[in-house]
């Protein structure tokens, strides 16, 4: 079953590779000039052109592109001087740690809120939740991030300065997973753990708030739908305890559409994480790409897009698997 799911992800991966190739090589302008950088001499540009095979035909270039990808060659960054793959590998954990924390925060808040709103229609909680869902969708993430920094750091002084993953005087823990929260615990350094956690507060809140609205809306809608269903009515008609009806009969079924839309929420979340990384000077792959953009350094940007897309494809695969675990109909029918 897992194999079959992997197979369904394959066209997505192919599509991603083709599109990134097109973005890389086939768009207006001179790709060689892009990769050589703004400060390159005409001679350097010609060298790059030959080296990257940009003077060959498009199909040949595609083959070269695939070959390079297979070897893990995503080009070189002009600003860092490193292979893009190395840069991405170094910076990806930061992005993943932040995105995961943001998602967990959003789920921890949105699921209970959605359930409460659905079980108490017309109440204060319900109105607040609906307001939250509507306005939350309207908030530009970059703006909320800045406002949070202004209020919680500048005005109230509760949060640390938005200067990255650790306080300035700290050194990062030994890299095991790349996630500072985990690695600092593995290194048995509680002070480091706290430092990493403190720095994570504001960006996690920003991301969490961004994802809060759609998940809350979906949870509330799904719960309302399920609570009105025939099988919940049967459970009630059998006199089952309200808690059982709510969790075993209603919530589990409501999770199905929520998990389905989680894919879209993740698409949104991965996109806005770039913005959040910029605001908080978070050394993730989003900030990496933005720095490259400013410097007209082209290869990192494309490497970033490819990586994000592949991460997204894998996450969607995980969501599909999760859905299959919750809903037996999918497993058995296929």
């Amino acid at each position, binding site marked *: 079953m897992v194999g079959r799911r992997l197979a369904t992800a394959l066209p997505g991966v192919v599509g991603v590779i083709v599109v990134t190739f097109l973005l890389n090589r086939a768009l207006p302008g001179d790709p060689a000039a892009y990769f050589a950088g703004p400060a390159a001499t005409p001679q350097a540009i010609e060298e790059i052109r030959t080296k990257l095979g940009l003077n060959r035909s498009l199909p040949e270039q595609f083959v070269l592109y695939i070959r390079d990808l297979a070897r893990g060659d995503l080009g070189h960054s002009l600003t860092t001087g490193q292979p893009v793959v190395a840069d991405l590998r170094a910076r990806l954990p930061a992005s993943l740690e932040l995105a995961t924390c943001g998602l967990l925060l959003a789920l921890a808040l949105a699921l209970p809120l959605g359930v409460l709103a659905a079980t108490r229609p017309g109440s204060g909680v319900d109105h607040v939740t609906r307001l939250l869902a509507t306005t939350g969708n309207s908030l530009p993430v970059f703006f909320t991030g800045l406002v949070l920094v202004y209020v919680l750091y500048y005005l109230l002084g509760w949060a640390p300065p938005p200067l990255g993953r650790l306080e300035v005087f700290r050194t990062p823990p030994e890299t095991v997973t790349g996630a500072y929260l985990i690695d600092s615990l593995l290194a048995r350094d509680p002070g480091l753990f706290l430092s990493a956690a403190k720095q994570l507060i504001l960006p996690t809140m920003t991301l969490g708030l961004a994802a809060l609205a759609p998940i809350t809306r979906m949870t509330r809608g799904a719960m309302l739908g399920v609570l009105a269903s*025939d099988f919940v009515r*049967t459970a009630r*008609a059998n*006199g*089952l305890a309200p808690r*059982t009806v709510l969790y*075993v009969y209603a919530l589990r079924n409501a999770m199905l559409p929520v998990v389905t839309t989680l894919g879209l929420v993740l698409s949104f979340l991965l996109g806005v994480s770039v913005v959040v990384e910029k605001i908080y000077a978070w050394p993730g792959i989003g900030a990496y790409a933005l720095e490259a953009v400013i410097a007209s350094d082209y290869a990192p940007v494309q490497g970033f897009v490819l990586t994000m897309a592949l991460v997204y494809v894998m996450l969607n695969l995980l969501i599909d698997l999760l859905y299959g675990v919750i809903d037996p*109909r999918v497993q058995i*029918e296929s």
Partner: protein
Amino acid sequence: MRGAGPLLSVEDLSLEFRARDGTVRVLDGVGFTVGWGETVGLVGESGSGKSITALAIMGVLPPTARVTAGRVIFKGTDLLAADERTLRRHRGSEISMTFQQARAALNPIRPVGWQIEDVIRHHTDLQPAAARSRTLDLLAGVQIPDPGRVYGAFPFELSGGMCQRVMIAMAVACSPSLLIADEPATGLDVCTQAAVLELIGDLARRSDMATLLISHDLGLLGERADRVVVMHAGHVVETAPTAALLAAPRHPYTAKLIASSPRPSVGLSDLVTIPGTIPDFRAQLPPCRFRFRCDRAAPECDQPPLPRVVVGPDHVVACRRPL
């Protein structure tokens, strides 16, 4: 075991729905009784209010519904006035219900055996192993051929008839005194229909369980019910012992209903249709809601209130001009 008086007594039940453009007065003064161990058939067209009455008795109405008057006395307790905790104790163990679309009425992502067990474990002290064993017995008791396999199956893996049997097993799991079966045979093929109704009858006889059989098919009820309650547009129009009702109906609607039911002796072209449809409940309605479809209507029929005329032993008609 049996108490004095009827097991269930629905008295003057009135119910309305809040809709966007008005209130829909779905039930108006509905009243009937079910005796201990008795099988009562509740019959009427779609929209007559039979299912809603059942939901009101069980207390699982949709949130937009509101009971505006009446009592539902079950074993001496008014279910409409009781608190939730008392009601939960009754539901599933003293009085239970099976629903029409059985597959939709079962949790789609939970094995059906577990769902039955949920009911058993909630209402009794049985331990998991004993509860499981009882569940398997119940499944066997509703003539499911392979209880072990069905125990772990999901509703979508079972046929409509099987799902209905599972529902019945769930409903009788705690030996209720009253089983309400809402259209238990609808949507099933003819053989399964007969089998399901036979099954309910058997279970009822074995444990002296009263049954309220709800159906739009008078023919089905004719063979199985001791008494019949006929509903039209939210009113009870006639109640009588089955034989008396079928032999000599006293309400024009009942007569039409019988005449329009397919029977072996009557050809298809000889079947009567009942003109018109159920009236719009949002509008102002005359005291008798059958008035505009009735060919015996007279000016006196517009006089409120709707009468209740005793025309025979245990035979009541809501008509000013009974047949």
